[in-house]
């Protein structure tokens, strides 16, 4: 019973760690490029968050399943040989999922696809996805990998939402396309341009660190 309990909290932890303590953007600082580039508006951020979460989920499942499968059918020395070429294997798996997302988005959400531009194919080199494959999925079970992917994807999406909300509200005076300050508001254009992304992200990162320092140092970094 105790064992089952600890396993349950373990699973819950796999899920929640991506949201705050190991937030991919603000804490482990992976995947900055797409985050800054697409956080111009909330709808872009949601689209990118969903696409990246899908790729992360698919690649985590396939990589965890593949590695456990290899452990089972191959003798250890052969598995060690396969381990040497694991990075190319991961990249092919990730690129396949990105191609799926690219084609689906092109077909069903052409407007969003046009706005996200080259950042959809560039999900391949999003460090979060390869990072989770190498650091987590390669050495854990499929269930844990699914929870890790969902948590990390959610953390990434939330970080994007936070950035894009600030930038859209200040920079365009809108929230998800609706005017918030009324028509008289003079938008601070710089926030929707490139510098705004860097400034907002740097300040949020500082805020996260400050909050972490206040909560005490018992949380693992």
């Amino acid at each position: 019973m105790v064992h089952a309990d600890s396993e349950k909290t373990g699973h819950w932890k796999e899920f929640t760690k991506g949201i705050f303590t190991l937030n991919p953007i603000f804490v482990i600082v992976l995947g900055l490029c797409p985050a800054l580039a697409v956080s111009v508006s909330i709808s872009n951020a949601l689209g990118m968050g969903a696409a990246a979460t899908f790729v992360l989920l698919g690649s985590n499942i396939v990589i965890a399943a593949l590695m456990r499968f290899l452990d089972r059918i191959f003798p250890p020395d052969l598995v060690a040989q396969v381990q040497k070429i694991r990075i190319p294997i991961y990249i092919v798996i990730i690129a396949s999922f990105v191609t799926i997302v690219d084609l689906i988005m092109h077909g069903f959400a052409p407007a969003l696809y046009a706005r996200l531009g080259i950042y959809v194919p560039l999900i391949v080199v999003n460090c979060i996805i390869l990072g989770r494959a190498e650091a987590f999925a390669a050495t854990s079970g499929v269930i844990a990998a699914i929870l890790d992917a969902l948590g990390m994807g959610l953390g990434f999406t939330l970080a994007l939402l936070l950035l894009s909300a600030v930038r859209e509200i200040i920079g365009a005076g809108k929230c998800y396309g609706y005017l918030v300050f009324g028509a008289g508001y003079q938008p601070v254009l710089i926030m929707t341009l490139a510098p705004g992304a860097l400034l907002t992200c740097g300040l949020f990162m500082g805020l996260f660190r400050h909050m972490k320092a206040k909560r005490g140092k018992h949380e693992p970094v």
Partner: protein
Amino acid sequence: MNLFELFSIFIGVALVNNFIFCQFLGLCPYIGVTERTSSAMGMGMAVIFVMTLSSIITWAIYEWVLVPYGITYLYIIAFILVIAAFVQLVEMFLQKSVPALYRALGIYLPLITTNCAVLGVATLNKQQLFGTPGSLIKCIVQGFGGGIGFTLAMLIMAGIRERLDFAEVPQSLRGIPIALITAGLTAIGFLGFAGLSF
């Protein structure tokens, strides 16, 4: 295609649409290796080299393999594999034949595989230039210009960060956050180049 067109592509990708300050490509090495000017220079050289050559290679793969067989939708997989294999090849070649350059570029070469600026320039080439007359030359110019712009941004940042070490930065902003804020302020300066459109 004339010389002026090539020049405007070069200026466009190196300054007006600088990869780091305007398109946010290659931020990881930008944050990671800009603590010293020397390492920023090494990374910049490696990126110029790989970006220019990978522009040629991805052009060849696209025009000679993907288009004839009608499998252009596989371009993401093809490009990333070709770039990864190419970087590996360059590393082995330099190690054997130009050891001095290999030592200078050192650890920066393998890091380039996951540099989104390299895949980014290939994707930009594919979207903007492939299929236009003289596309190979334009792709080479775009790759080279992108590398130059990247190196420029790296050097500016490294110079600032070397001085930031002596500044009194609030505890929670030290390191990466202040680097991002500095980059934001530098990017405001780069906005000025937007007036250079031809």
